[in-house]
């Protein structure tokens, strides 16, 4: 019994010490963002003077060359359609892969699995050329299309696995009653998939919001830059303005953190399911 209590204490101390170390960078970032520069220049952990200010956030929001107000709006304009569109088309395809029988199905599915592991660098140069040909360079539609195509393989994979866990009897009964595949899918199957769809939406939205590489290649005019692209631009020329940088980091990461906080259960289920099955 005594040994057990000792064990419990050690475990708790270790776990919470670990959590403390892990949250330290965020605390530092936060402290740097809410205090004036001359107070944090020799370390944000020194509290001889403590002045609370929102000036850094205001400066990040209205930055003269890389305003986050515009960046966050742009990122939303890209991330929302680039979440809805691929979910719509890829879950339909996933249903096809889960229920229909056709000749080249297995080959197609393996191809999709291979596409899932592709590094983004593999499509970078040609996608730049294609978008140039289609006059979609430096336009949101172009980047939305690329994100949708990029997400399709994992959404197909994830949703196909989800569909194969559903009982098939109800669908068969509906088919016997004369319902078409479309009716069965949209009226019967899809409503039962809402938890899975929320998982996919939470992850896809966060990933598109956080993306940097695709945006870097396809979007370049100053008023179109997405939120993540503006952070590297905020580095000062002569000195690194950590107040400004930390405030803008907090603003940009706040969006995926809010998604995670609100949809935590779905987010983690999506993460685990996406990788495990």
């Amino acid at each position: 019994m005594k040994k057990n209590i000792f064990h419990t204490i050690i475990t708790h101390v270790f776990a919470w010490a670990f959590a403390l170390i892990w949250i330290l960078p965020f605390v530092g970032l936060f402290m740097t963002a809410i205090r004036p520069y001359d107070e944090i220049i020799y370390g944000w952990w020194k509290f001889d003077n403590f002045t609370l200010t929102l000036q850094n956030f205001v400066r990040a929001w209205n930055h003269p060359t890389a305003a986050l107000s515009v960046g966050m709006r742009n990122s939303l304009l890209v991330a929302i359609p680039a979440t809805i569109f691929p979910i719509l088309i890829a879950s339909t395809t996933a249903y096809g892969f889960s229920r229909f029988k056709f000749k080249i199905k297995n080959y197609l599915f393996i191809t999709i699995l291979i596409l899932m592991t592709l590094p983004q660098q593999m499509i970078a140069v040609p996608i730049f050329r294609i978008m140039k040909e289609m006059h979609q360079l430096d336009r949101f539609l172009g980047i939305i299309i690329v994100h949708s195509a990029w997400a399709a393989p994992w959404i197909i994979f994830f949703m196909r696995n989800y569909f194969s866990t559903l009982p098939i009897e109800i669908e068969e009964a509906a088919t016997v009653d004369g319902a078409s595949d479309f009716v069965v899918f949209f009226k019967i199957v899809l409503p039962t998939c809402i938890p899975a769809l929320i998982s996919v939406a939470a992850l896809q939205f966060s990933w598109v919001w956080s993306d940097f590489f695709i945006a870097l290649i396809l979007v370049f005019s100053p008023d179109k830059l997405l939120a993540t692209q503006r952070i590297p631009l905020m580095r000062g020329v002569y000195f690194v303005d950590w107040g400004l940088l930390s405030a803008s980091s907090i603003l940009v990461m706040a969006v995926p953190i809010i998604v995670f906080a609100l949809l935590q259960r779905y987010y983690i289920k999506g993460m685990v399911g996406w990788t495990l099955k």
Partner: protein
Amino acid sequence: MVSLFKNTFIEKRTIVLKKKITRLSFLLPTLILLAIFILYPAISTLYLSLVTPSGNIDPISNYEDVFGRREIINTKGISQGFEFPLGALLHNLLWIIIHLPITTFLGLILAILLRDVKGNAVIKSIIFLGMVIPMIVGGLIVRFMFDKYVGIIPSFLNIFGVIPKNWTIYPETALFSMILGSIWLWTGFSMILYSAGLSTIPQSYYEAAKVDGASPMRIFFSITLPMLKPITTVVITMTVLWELKIFDLVYVATMGGPGGSSNVLALQMYLYAFRQYNFTRASVVATILMLITMLVAIPMIKSSKGEERS
């Protein structure tokens, strides 16, 4: 009578045809999108990597050229007793060698420990936060933590007599500070997966082992570890893929510098393509990356295609 039979026959055929068209419309939109915007670009990158700038198909000379570049493999740095830069390929390798065992092991330990810690949901969320934030912010935080003045790590090490400096701008520490930062970012992944895996192990197994008088060590090696094997495969595969594809973090923390001493393959591909406009070299680097990722992912692809419903 004959015409009636003929009519129903035609009707049946149109129904079948209609059904086929509906089913095609389930699949085609996504497949066309994938073909144009993913498959075709990937194949043209592959093709580009095989064709010399003068237009001949000569993969050997292209790949020889890239593998001979000092930004990919720096033989001089290696022969001088592993002095940075070692080249992007070796930096990626070093990243895997350090980052993979630490994050996998740490994630497993945490998942096991946190099972009976009060407030474990909070701790898990904190550790998982690194997976939630954009990598570009993650890279900025790495720079911030290792900054000479505002960074807490150099100031902390100063207590032990280490002279504070900007870790990210010195060749011998730039790569290591980013690897350390990426451990902070990625440990949440293996922890969450192992936590999910642990919850699927039936409690009765542990009870039976305890009744038989098995030690905690024995239980760990004979029950927990073997039961978690499929999860370990996934964790290792996904972690290696992430390490190979790392880009944003390096872009914002060091830009591969100083003098290429913290460069990685994904960044070098970007520099070849969009800074030097050398598309052949860029395509070769991208193809090398793809070949390695595919090699790593094969076991996972093999195991996931077989689980279709019968």
